[in-house]
């Protein structure tokens, strides 16, 4: 079993994918569903097992049995730690949920959908588990290739094609950028194993190391959709089939960030250690900018999936802020936050999918007052919106609490206001949607505002009065898991230990290259959750107030007109910048890389 389990989260889904492709159209739909679900279920189990096992030290698994010679790696390793295994387990669970949801959702073309989903799954697992930088790139590309195809799945419409094009071009450029960085590193160290590169780089921090760091980081940040690399995300989410959105928002974007953290802690930490303060400042500013832009743009949308997509952008900004603390408490908080957010956002997208299935539209203004017909979906949405603002016991608040206490020690306590701001605005946006759809509050459709680009999309199903259990139950399960994770005993302590393991560069190198024994990690005692609880409740109340103000009936709106005028004064130019033009996206991408690179170059030399 020890020979099989570490490789199986990649090998099993890929084998099943190939099998399903070979028998395309010759097997019944239900059998294909069952096989695909079985493969993803297997990945969940295997990854959970790896998660348990690796909490006592890294699992280092050499593909092809090529153990390192004299401390030099000659093969590819899976280097599995609890956070990596956790990411893979979470990705597999979301794939499973998405497959269950789509069982009655798609009028699928042969088995192509299943094949692509399984390839996507295998890529995400490999991406989380690998310990080799080029292998990371290969799985990054596999993830992208499957994602592009899934994104353009609904070829009958014009939107998906344009969204997929923007997605594909920007992400491919990001991948080439990361590959160039990898080339630079290889030119310096002659190694591809991350542990060995880290060892070989040591403390040097010349131009090459900085350039490699910035290029690899920016390549992955394109996937993580940080401003100014974020444009593709809203487009891709707005058009991808709903079950696929769950994966994009719930885990794929976060995996971009995971890769940044992995790369930093295994390879560059030694080199950049004396510039920790500057690194922190740069990433915090980037994250804060992203959180604010994402939140504002989210509030301005009426296409519900696009709204959710911008909210994801806002939350990845917060996640980058958490990573930027470069402390184990914040990293543990980040892990919990990703989990909570992924469950929540997944459930939100699924409920949007139910709306689309039931009412045939995804435009907030079109759906005004129609929610009574789809009461379960809109009711769920209300619940979920509260989670976005971090109300306890929703899982995100656990993460926020950890991040806050870590930030406080680093004199960054002001970032908790950013967390509150992003939480309030994105939650208010979803509450507004739910209020408008379910209760029919707020303005009616204003036909004068037509030049807004895509606001709606076609059905993905044949529609129907009934919402099948395969759609409703997964949504509910995600919601309950998101609530339940707060009650797992010792979760925070265990995650902190895992984060310490993740960040220990020296122990990582010794375990990978020299079979060293793992050290034991003893995190601090649990801190009080009370401030987090209070803050969560305050944000939720504020979110309710903001949403209420927006939805006020006409006569009462007068009072806040000046305020909303101010808001749209800020929003207008921001929306114009999101032009939907691929050239703009690439120009901003280059500008982002140049700016981040320039800042690092300035600080380090």
């Amino acid at each position: 079993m020890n020979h099989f389990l570490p490789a199986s989260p990649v090998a099993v889904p890929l084998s099943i994918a190939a099998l399903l492709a070979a028998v395309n159209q010759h097997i019944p739909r239900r059998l294909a569903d069952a096989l695909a679900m079985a493969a993803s279920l297997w990945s969940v189990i295997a990854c959970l097992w790896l998660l348990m096992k690796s909490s006592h030290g890294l699992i280092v698994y050499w593909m092809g049995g090529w153990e390192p010679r004299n401390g030099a790696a000659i093969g590819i390793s899976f280097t599995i730690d609890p956070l990596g295994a956790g990411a893979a387990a979470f990705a597999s669970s979301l794939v499973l949920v998405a497959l269950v949801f789509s069982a009655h959702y798609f009028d699928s073309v042969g088995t192509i959908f299943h094949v692509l989903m399984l390839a996507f799954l295998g890529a995400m697992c490999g991406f989380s588990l690998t310990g080799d930088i080029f292998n990371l790139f290969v799985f990054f590309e596999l993830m992208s290739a499957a994602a592009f195809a899934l994104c353009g799945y609904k070829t009958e419409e014009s939107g998906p094609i344009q969204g997929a094009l923007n997605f594909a071009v920007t992400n491919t450029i990001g991948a080439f950028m990361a590959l160039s960085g990898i080339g630079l590193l290889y030119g310096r160290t002659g190694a591809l194993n991350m542990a060995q590169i880290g060892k070989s780089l040591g403390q040097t921090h010349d131009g090459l190391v900085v350039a490699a760091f910035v290029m690899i980081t920016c390549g992955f940040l394109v996937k993580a959709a940080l401003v100014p690399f974020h444009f593709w995300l809203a487009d891709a989410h707005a058009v991808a089939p709903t079950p696929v959105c769950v994966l994009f928002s719930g885990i794929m974007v976060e995996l971009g960030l995971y890769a940044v953290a992995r790369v930093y802690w295994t390879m560059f930490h030694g080199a950049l250690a004396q510039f920790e303060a500057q690194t922190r400042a740069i990433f915090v500013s980037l994250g804060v900018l992203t959180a604010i832009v994402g939140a504002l743009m989210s509030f301005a949308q009426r296409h519900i999936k696009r709204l959710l997509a911008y909210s994801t952008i806002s939350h990845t900004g917060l996640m980058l802020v958490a990573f930027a603390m470069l402390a184990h408490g914040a990293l543990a908080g980040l892990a919990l936050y990703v989990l909570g957010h992924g469950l929540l956002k997944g459930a939100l997208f699924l409920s949007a999918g139910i709306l689309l299935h039931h009412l045939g539209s995804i435009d907030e203004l079109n759906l005004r007052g129609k929610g009574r017909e789809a009461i379960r979906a809109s009711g769920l949405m209300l619940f979920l919106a509260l989670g976005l603002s971090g109300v306890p016991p929703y899982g995100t608040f656990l993460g926020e609490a950890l991040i806050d206490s870590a930030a406080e020690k680093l004199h960054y306590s002001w970032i908790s206001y950013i967390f509150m701001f992003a939480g309030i605005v994105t939650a208010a946006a979803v509450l507004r949607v739910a209020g408008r759809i379910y209760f029919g509050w707020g303005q009616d459709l204003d036909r004068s505002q037509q030049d807004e680009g895509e606001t709606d999309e076609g059905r993905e199903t044949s529609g129907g009065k009934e919402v099948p259990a395969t759609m409703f139950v997964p949504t509910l399960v995600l919601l309950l898991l998101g609530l339940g994770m707060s009650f797992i005993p010792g979760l925070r302590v265990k995650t902190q230990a895992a984060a310490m393991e993740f960040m220990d560069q020296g122990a990582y190198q010794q375990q990978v290259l020299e079979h060293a024994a793992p050290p034991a990690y003893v995190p601090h005692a649990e801190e009080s959750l009370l401030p987090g609880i209070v803050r969560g409740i305050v944000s939720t109340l504020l979110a309710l107030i903001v949403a209420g103000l927006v939805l006020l009936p006409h006569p009462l709106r007068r009072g806040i007109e000046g305020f909303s005028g101010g808001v749209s004064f800020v929003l207008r130019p921001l929306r114009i910048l999101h032009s939907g033009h691929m050239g703009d996206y690439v120009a901003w991408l280059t500008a982002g890389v140049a700016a981040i690179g320039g800042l690092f170059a300035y600080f380090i030399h």
Partner: protein
Amino acid sequence: MSQAVSEFLRMLPFLVAAWLFVVGLYGIVTSRHLVHLIMCLVVVQTSTYLLLLGVGYKIGAAAPIFADIPVGTPAVDPVTHALMLTDIVVEATVMALLLALAIQAEERAGSVDPEQLRIMRG
């Protein structure tokens, strides 16, 4: 003379790689035709070949094929070649996917000019 040339050559493949990367991006930013844009993306990708090729090369070394030369002869790095092979196949397939998207863009949106494909604004 040959000294000067070899000093110039020391950085040449890398400079060309950097140049091609940026020029390709320029083509993408200013492109008015999706197919042109995709071919510019190919140019960006070739930049990574040049970088890897330059990194793995050794002066005066043979190709890493030990059929005719004895083991131990200095040979260039086979790993970068393997990486480039991977890169080339990836290129062809990703470009195929993009070209397919371009065909669909013409079909569904009636244009291949990024200027006209702006349904995703705001």
